[in-house]
């Protein structure tokens, strides 16, 4: 399968953005010019450098508490990517184990697992996060729990579908004849063949998680302050839309670029995986 030039360019752009983000997130302490949580009230609401009154000391200006926007943005990348990675790892592991089990064993195990997955699909995520935030207070663990509760179902569905396809293949039958245990067949024979589909799904879901996390932070039920998170930065800037519009604009652009990058990469991976979906391209 060869990619068209347009797909090659867009996925390359996506990949470059993702690498830059990862570097930024990993080396946030070194890259960021200031401490993201320390501000000086003398320097509050400074505009970015291209605006009148802005300076290169704070390239993207400062917020209401005088904290450097650029530094908060860089540390915000770390928050978003950490949440995305952990949530997807947790949900992906649970989802694929349950999905493979459902598809491979079939019968009532399949029925029960997929029923629960249907339920998880239709649960109002954001409201659940609000309930948890009221009960336990906003925290990192809540976010992972809420996002994980919703995400696992999609992995379960996909892993089940793939497992159903693979289970009737000859090499699985051979393994069975050779006396390999069911658990071992699932782990050693089914899982490696499902893994690539799951990785594509994971790439596409990074975007979903980042949007979800930023929505939660925006509503004040995500990352508790003063942790820098893009969603809460937008929320903090909202009251100053008239006088300091950049406060809400800048973190939104960061979310847009990040999610776009993962979606571009994920779309290309999907096409590479299913050449049939794009026969003529």
């Amino acid at each position, binding site marked *: 399968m060869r990619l068209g030039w*347009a797909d090659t360019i867009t996925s390359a752009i996506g990949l470059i953005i993702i690498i830059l983000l990862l570097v930024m997130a990993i080396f946030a302490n070194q890259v960021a010019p200031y401490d993201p949580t320390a501000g000086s009230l003398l320097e509050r609401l400074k505009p970015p450098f291209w605006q009148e009154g802005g300076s290169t000391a704070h390239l993207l200006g400062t917020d209401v508490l005088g904290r450097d926007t650029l530094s908060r943005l860089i540390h915000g990348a770390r928050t978003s990517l950490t949440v995305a990675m952990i949530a997807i790892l947790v949900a992906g592991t649970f989802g694929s184990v349950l999905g493979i089990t459902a598809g491979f064993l079939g019968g009532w195990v399949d029925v029960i697992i997929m029923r629960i997955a249907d*339920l998880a*699909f*239709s*649960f*109002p*995520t*954001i*409201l*659940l996060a*609000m*309930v*948890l*935030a*009221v*009960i*336990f207070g906003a925290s990192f663990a809540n976010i992972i729990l809420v996002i994980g509760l919703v995400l696992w179902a999609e992995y379960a569905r996909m892993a089940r579908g793939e497992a159903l396809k693979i289970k009737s293949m000859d090499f699985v039958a051979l393994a069975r004849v050779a006396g390999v245990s069911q658990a071992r067949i699932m782990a050693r024979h089914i899982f490696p063949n499902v893994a690539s589909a799951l990785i594509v799904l994971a790439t596409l879901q990074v*975007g979903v998680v980042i*949007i979800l996390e*930023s*929505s939660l932070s*925006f*509503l*004040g*039920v995500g990352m508790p302050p003063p942790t820098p998170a893009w*969603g809460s930065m*937008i929320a903090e800037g*909202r009251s100053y*839309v*008239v006088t300091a*519009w950049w406060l*809400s*604009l800048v973190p*939104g652009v960061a*979310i*847009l670029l990040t*999610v*776009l990058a993962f*979606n*571009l990469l994920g*779309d290309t991976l999907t096409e590479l995986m299913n050449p049939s*979906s794009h*026969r*003529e*391209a």
Partner: protein
Amino acid sequence: MLFVVSTVVFALSRLTGNPVALLLTEYSSEEDKVRLTQELGFDKSLPEQYLIFISNALRGDLGRSIRGERAPALSLVADRFPASAQLAVVTVLVSLLIGVPLGVITAVNKGTWIDAFGRIFALIGQSAPVFWIGIVAMYVLSVQLRWLPSSGYGKPEQFVLPVFALSWFTLAAFVRLTRSSMIESLESEYIKLARIKGLSELKVVWKHALRNSLLPVITYSGIIFGRTIAGVVVVETVFAWPGIGRLAYESVLGRDFPVLQAVVLVVATMFLLINLSVDILYAYIDPRIRYS
């Protein structure tokens, strides 16, 4: 499903040990605590509490708000429900009316700049958070250009900004779904036959191919509707829209657990009804389902 959701909500509310602590501040007197504990029935055993909760819920009694005049939680939700329903329905309609035709057009022009434009448009919609689109649209269209009211509810022009913010995301999903299933339909045998029969291209695309491409769109519309509801909660807080999303947000700020619980149950009920109607619609559009 509804039973499970209500049980989950009940379990969550009791997980903290003492739900009274949720409702009172640290400044409340010991006397208040005892009174509230008795009033809310928290001095009884857990199974008893659960039975009372379920039987009350079945009779439409979801407790009272802990704020203001302590209105019944369900009636608060009922008051706010129409505003949210209007927003969600208008959003889904607008998204369908723009998203499906755009999906068809991009599929027909696959590989051209029209296709590229449509796909990028859809990608941006799926990549930007709705609340941010809302704030940017508010800044440009109402703060700078003063074309539209920045918030509020009631007049038709007040629908424009929230619906715009919400439908970009929703219609992106419709574009992608319609596009991929149209591409598949257009390559099928019955479309070749329709063309050989000499039907006009317009009729082939918009009637024969589209009709068969709508199935996945309908299958997913339940999920899309669910995401729209999630978006509604966020967008309502941006535009001061007096719906259940804003109510939920206010309840979080005021730690008004009974009202939040009522919102969750009402939304879960809606999900159930929507998924049910999607199933029915599905059988109506695809005659094959009736035979199986």
